[in-house]
């Protein structure tokens, strides 16, 4: 129980995820399904943001003064950019890490935030397409309840024509 409270953000992620999935599967209304889908996707955003948190970590912004004095990062970045391979990149990584280490500063990991920005954009696009489909469905069927749509399709099949 105590671990659950210590990792409360994971608990929130799981609860949101299950609520979202439940709404998607249980509701026949297309808009409600999209709401559930969005909640489900949002839980993943939270998961990624949780992942980027480093205990005691600061915002990942390098102090220019600190950075200049250690020098290492300055030369290794172009070396990595020239693509001289894995070793160069590893070297630059080590240099940055040692610079950070000597200064005794812990930074939060910025990468998951960047990743999840992309996923948020994807989620927005999916939602937009989904809503557009709901609008068109309403125009062509006159309803957005899936059980009613199924009934209309079934009747259309019986009459031997569709749409």
């Amino acid at each position, binding site marked *: 129980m105590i671990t659950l409270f210590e990792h409360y953000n994971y608990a929130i992620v799981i609860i949101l995820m299950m609520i979202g*999935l439940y709404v*998607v599967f249980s509701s026949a209304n*297309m808009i409600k*399904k*999209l709401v559930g*889908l969005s909640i*489900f*996707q949002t839980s*993943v955003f939270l*998961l*990624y943001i949780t*992942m980027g948190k480093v205990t005691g970590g600061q915002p990942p912004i390098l102090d220019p003064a600190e950075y200049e004095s250690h020098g290492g990062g300055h030369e290794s970045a172009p070396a*990595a*950019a*020239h*693509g*001289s*391979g*894995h070793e*160069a*990149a590893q070297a630059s*990584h080590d240099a940055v890490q040692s610079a950070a280490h000597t200064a005794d500063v812990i930074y939060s990991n910025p*990468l*998951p935030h960047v*990743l999840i920005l*992309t*996923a948020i954009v*994807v989620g927005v*696009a*999916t939602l937009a*397409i*989904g809503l557009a*489909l*709901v609008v*068109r*469905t309403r125009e*062509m*069927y006159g309803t957005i309840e*899936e059980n009613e*749509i199924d009934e209309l*399709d079934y009747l259309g099949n019986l009459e031997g024509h*569709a*749409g």
Partner: protein
Amino acid sequence: MDLLSYTPAWISTHGPALLVVLPLMMAVLTAILPSRAAIGGKLAWLAVLATSGICLAVAVSMLLQVMAHGPIDYAMGGWAPPFGIAYRVDALNAPILVLISAVAVLCTLYALPSVDAEVEPKKRAAFYAAFLVSFAGLLGMVITADAFNVFVFLEVSSISTYVLVAMGASRDRRALTSSFNYLVMGSIGATFFVIGIGFLYMQTGTLNMMDMARILQDGGVDSKVTKLAFAFILVGLGLKLAMFPLHTWLPGAYSYAPSFFTAFMAATATKAALYLMLRFSFMVFDPSWAFIGKAVMILVAALGLLGMMAASLQAMFQNDLRRVLAFSSIAQVSYMLLGIGMATTLGLSAGYLHMLNHAIIKGGLFIAAGAFWYRFGITQVCDMRGLGKTMPWTMAGFTVLGISLIGVPGTVGFVSKLALVQAAALHGWWWAIGAIVLTSIMAIIYVGRLIEQAYFQDPPKKGAVTVSKNEAPLMMLIPLWIFAISAIVFGINAEWTTSLAAAAAELLSGGPDTIVPHMGGH
């Protein structure tokens, strides 16, 4: 290797980037074409044809280079991996890149008459733009070696696919609900996949697939996080590739999408997702780890077996022609899963070969199904009466591909089914051979039904007059017959495709003729 000398040197340095960037850029250009003018649709079609043609040329020359000189690596933007996004073309994905671009070229040829009939003039330019985005997404998810980049391209291709499926609404309004259903299922699948990537990143601290594999080997094999990551990735990709209980989106999407896009999607979309499952299961994770081995063998093979049976059974009772083909697609994907589930070099090779061969078969069959609709508005199996007389060439192409789907000797279907049976026999999975034979008999029934209607029934009568012969336009016959002829050519001389599959399987299992050890007996 005469062809290799014709490939320009820049292909190996910048080819991988071009393959993704070109369709994306052309999609933007195509979308802003003047859509109101009648010329807009034609220009867009030309742009798509040129783009897919160039992509095919690049993909073929990359395949030749990979076969001759080994993998091609590309660091996006000059940022060295593992920090930058890396693209990697190797024996596993090069044939799939060629497959996707070749199918795109053939389907684009077919699109000229087909899209004219099915999409309103003012929407055509945008329709082609969406197709290019979907094409770029598929190429991107196959070529990239960055796990998160896979997710991005997966969604790029999926979102445009939802749009393209919904465009079938002018023909049949059920396209809208099918597209919506696919959107909900597809988004859940992609989200599961991204959760899996997140857990992998938690465990390894990297997104580069090769780096992930290295770090996982060094430690973290038994970590719960790794296991969880694999579970999420397997389910997410399983949704995308229509693994048996997660296949419910597929029949609707295939049946009601515009016929041009159905042909493209049936030949490529599930294959790209299947490739990802191979890449992750065997090259990021390793089936020699107890957990992964069990999951691959028990889950993937068992679901493959169930899928073969259930989908073949359902295909026999469908009234809609494209639904018959769609359920058959699920059954064929299950064959591939069975091959993967064996986790031996031979099994993987057979599954991979079936993936290439099935793309040829299904692409052609859906093109023919679209041609039947184009001429006579046929969607139901019972309406196929007399097609052997009214559309002889189209029906002949359909028949060649149909018997190839059954697996008659001399066709591609036979080659890969035989390889699968051999692999199963050497693995000691006799029940799998029984299942393959049984489902092949079911295939005789569901394909035979279609052929029987076409050749042994008289064409319908309009009043007193029998419907006269009305062949599909040449632009439909050409791609259809290219598919049909390659089904026979690669069926009689399977050396090239078999060697491609063998090279891919070798790469997957990490050496020639090694049986990947896994837990559990045969």
